[in-house]
C-alpha cells in the first residue's frame, strides 16, 4: 500500500513545488496574522485554524526532505534546518515565534514610541517613552558632575580616543611610546583633570561622578591594574617557593570565594573602621581597589590555565639559554601563555565591565545606577523598561566592541604552530 510515495529523487519534480508551496503558505498565514491581524483560515473550526500553519509547514517540510537531491540549495536547507521531523518542527516554531514577535517589538521600539517632548506627559503613545532617555541623557553620561565642568570629562575622553586612534596609524617604534603614555601617564592625568583641585580647576568630589563616564573610569582602572596583579598571582601560585605559593593561593581563593557585592560593601563600610582616626581614603579609590583585587583573582586563574598549557620544553629551552626566572617568563612563557588565554581574559574583562553597576551598594552610580535613580523620580515613575533597555544596549555595544577587539588580537597574534 503506497498511497504517497516516500519523497525521493524520482518524484522531486512534483514533491518539491508542492512542499515549498505548503511551507510558504504556512509562513504567509502567520505573517498576515501577525502584521495585519487577519485570520485567513478563520472559516475553519478554531482549533484547526490555530494549528493549520504548523500542519501545513510540517507536511511541506516532509515533502521536500529528499536526500542527495542533487540540488545544492535544497540539500543545504535539508541538512541545516530540516534533517528530520523533530528539526522541522523546531524550525517552524522558531520562525513562527520570530514572525509573531516582530510587530509588537516594532510598535514598542519605534512605531508607537514617543520621541518628542520633555516631560512624561508628552508620552501619549503606547510604545516606549524615549523622551525619558533624552531628558536624562546628560545625567546618564555624567552623573551628578556639575554641568559647567563637564568639558573636563569630555576632554579626558577625547584625549584618550585621540591617542588610541592615532596609535593605529603610527610606526611600531612610536606606538611603544603611545602605549607607555596610555598606561603610565594618561590614567593619572585624566583623573587629575576630572577630579580637579589644582591648576585652577574646581575640585569635584568623586561622589558627584557618575553615569557612563564613571563606568568607563572604573572599568579602565580596574582592567589596567587587575591584569598585572593577576599575572603576578598566577606566577606566584606556580612558584617553587612555598611562602609565595601559599600566599598566592590564599589570596586567590579568598577573593574568589566572596561575592563582589560583599567585597564592595566591606570596602565602603567596614574598611574605614579599621583605619586610624584622621586617615581618609576616597570612597571611589576604595571601591576601585576592591574591584581590582577581586577581578585579579579571576584573572590569575585564567592566566594560570595558559601557563599550564605550555609544554615543559619551553621552560627548559629558555633555561638552557641562560635565562633567569623573570626573563624566561617575560620573553618566552607569558607571551605564549597570554596569547593562549585571550578568550578567557576577554571573558573576565567583560564580566568586570558588567559588574560595575554593583557599585550602587556603596552609593556610587554609574550608568545603570543613574537609571535606577532616575526611574524613582516622582515625575518619571514607570520608566524602568526604557531605562534598562537603554542600559542594556549601551553595555552590549561596549562589550561587543571589546569582544571583537579580542578576536582581532587573537588573529593578529597567531603564528602557526
Amino acid at each position, binding site marked *: 500500500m503506497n498511497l504517497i510515495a516516500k519523497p525521493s529523487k524520482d518524484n522531486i519534480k512534483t514533491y518539491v513545488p508542492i512542499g515549498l508551496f505548503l511551507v510558504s503558505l504556512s509562513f504567509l498565514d502567520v505573517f498576515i496574522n501577525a502584521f495585519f491581524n487577519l485570520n485567513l483560515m478563520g472559516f475553519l473550526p478554531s482549533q484547526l485554524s490555530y494549528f493549520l500553519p504548523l500542519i501545513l509547514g510540517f507536511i511541506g517540510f516532509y515533502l521536500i526532505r529528499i536526500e542527495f537531491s542533487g540540488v545544492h540549495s535544497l540539500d543545504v536547507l535539508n541538512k541545516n534546518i530540516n534533517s528530520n521531523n523533530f528539526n522541522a518542527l523546531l524550525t517552524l516554531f522558531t520562525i513562527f515565534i520570530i514572525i509573531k514577535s516582530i510587530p509588537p517589538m516594532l510598535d514598542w521600539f519605534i512605531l508607537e514610541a514617543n520621541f518628542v517632548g520633555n516631560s512624561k506627559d508628552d508620552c501619549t503613545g503606547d510604545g516606549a517613552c524615549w523622551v525619558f532617555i533624552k531628558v536624562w541623557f546628560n545625567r546618564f553620561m555624567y552623573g551628578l558632575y556639575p554641568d559647567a565642568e563637564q568639558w573636563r570629562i569630555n576632554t579626558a575622553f577625547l584625549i584618550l580616543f585621540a591617542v588610541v586612534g592615532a596609535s593605529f596609524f603610527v610606526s611600531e617604534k612610536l606606538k611603544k611610546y603611545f602605549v607607555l603614555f596610555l598606561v603610565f601617564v594618561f590614567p593619572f592625568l585624566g583623573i587629575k583633570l576630572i577630579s580637579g583641585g589644582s591648576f585652577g580647576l574646581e575640585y569635584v568630589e568623586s561622589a558627584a561622578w557618575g553615569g557612563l563616564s564613571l563606568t568607563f573610569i572604573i572599568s579602565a582602572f580596574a582592567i589596567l591594574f587587575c591584569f598585572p596583579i593577576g599575572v603576578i598571582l598566577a606566577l606566584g601560585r606556580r612558584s617553587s617557593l612555598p611562602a609565595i605559593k601559599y600566599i598566592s593561593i590564599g589570596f586567590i581563593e579568598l577573593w574568589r570565594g566572596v561575592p563582589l557585592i560583599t567585597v564592595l560593601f566591606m570596602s565602603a563600610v567596614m574598611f574605614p573602621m579599621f583605619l586610624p582616626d584622621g586617615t581618609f581614603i576616597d570612597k571611589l579609590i576604595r571601591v576601585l581597589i576592591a574591584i581590582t583585587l577581586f577581578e585579579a583573582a579571576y584573572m590569575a586563574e585564567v592566566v594560570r590555565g595558559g601557563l599550564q598549557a605550555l*609544554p615543559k*620544553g619551553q621552560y627548559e629551552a*629558555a*633555561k*638552557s639559554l*641562560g*635565562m633567569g626566572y623573570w626573563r624566561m617568563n617575560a620573553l618566552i612563557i607569558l607571551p605564549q601563555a597570554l*596569547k593562549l588565554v585571550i578568550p578567557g581574559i576577554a571573558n573576565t574583562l567583560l564580566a568586570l565591565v558588567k559588574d560595575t553597576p554593583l557599585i550602587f551598594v556603596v552609593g556610587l552610580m554609574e550608568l545603570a545606577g543613574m537609571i535606577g535613580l532616575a526611574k524613582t523620580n516622582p515625575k518619571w515613575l514607570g520608566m524602568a523598561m526604557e531605562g534598562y533597555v537603554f542600559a542594556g544596549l549601551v553595555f552590549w555595544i561596549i562589550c561587543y566592541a571589546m569582544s571583537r577587539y579580542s578576536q582581532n588580537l587573537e588573529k593578529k597574534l597567531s603564528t602557526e604552530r
Partner: protein
Amino acid sequence: MGKIIELKNVNKWFDKFQVLKDIDLEVSPQEKIVICGPSGSGKSTLIRCINRLEEHQEGNIIVDGTELSESTKNIEKIRAEVGMVFQQFNLFPHLSILDNCSLAPIWVKKLPKKQAEEIAMNNLKRVQIDDQALKFPGQLSGGQQQRAAIARALCMEPKIMLFDEPTSALDPEMIKEVLDVMVDLAKGGMTMIVVTHEMGFAKEVADYMIFMDEGKIVERAKTQEFFENPKSERTKLFLSQIL
C-alpha cells in the same frame, strides 16, 4: 689538560627510584662523547644534570670550574656556557627563527640587537637555513627546526654542547641533514656530549663511547675499541641489537 666537566660519584633519585648510580665522568675540552643505552637507562637525565635542568642529590658536578649545587649562584651563567639541543627542538613558536636565535644573546649576554642578529645570521648560515630566518618555527620542517635549534644554542657561543637525542623525533630523511651539521660542529672543535642511537655518527666523531644501563655507566671506551671489542656482555647484547 684540565677537565671542563667532572662528575664524581653522582647519584640521583626520582622519588624512590634511583635513576643515576655512582656516575663518574670526566670530559676534557674539545672531547666528543657519545652516550648510548636502552631507554630508561638514565642517559638523558645524566646530561640534563650537567646544565642543572635536573638536580642531583649526591656527588659533585663541576662544570668549567664551578660546582653545581643548590647554593650555586648564577646558575644562569653556567647554562649560558652550556648549549643544549632537545629531542623536541623546543623552539619558541611565537618568535621568528631569527628572533629565536638572537633573543638570548640580546637579553642574557646584553649584546646590541644588531650584533646579536649578525651572530644569529652567521650561525643560521652555518646550519644552512639562513634563507628561513624570518619564518616562524611552525612553518619549517622537522629537520630545519632542529638545525635552527642548534643555531640558537650556538648563538650563545657555548663552551660545551649537549645533545639529547637530537634526531629521535625526525623523519629518516631529515636525520642526515641534522647529523651533517653536528659532524661539522664536531670538526670545528666543540666539546660535545651526545645522547644518540645513531651509531654511524658515533663512529665518525666520538672520542669516547659510554654505554649506560639502569642508571650505571656499564662501559666507557675509546670508540674503536667500544665497537670492535666491547667488554661487558650487556654492551655486546645492546650493540648486536642496534647495529
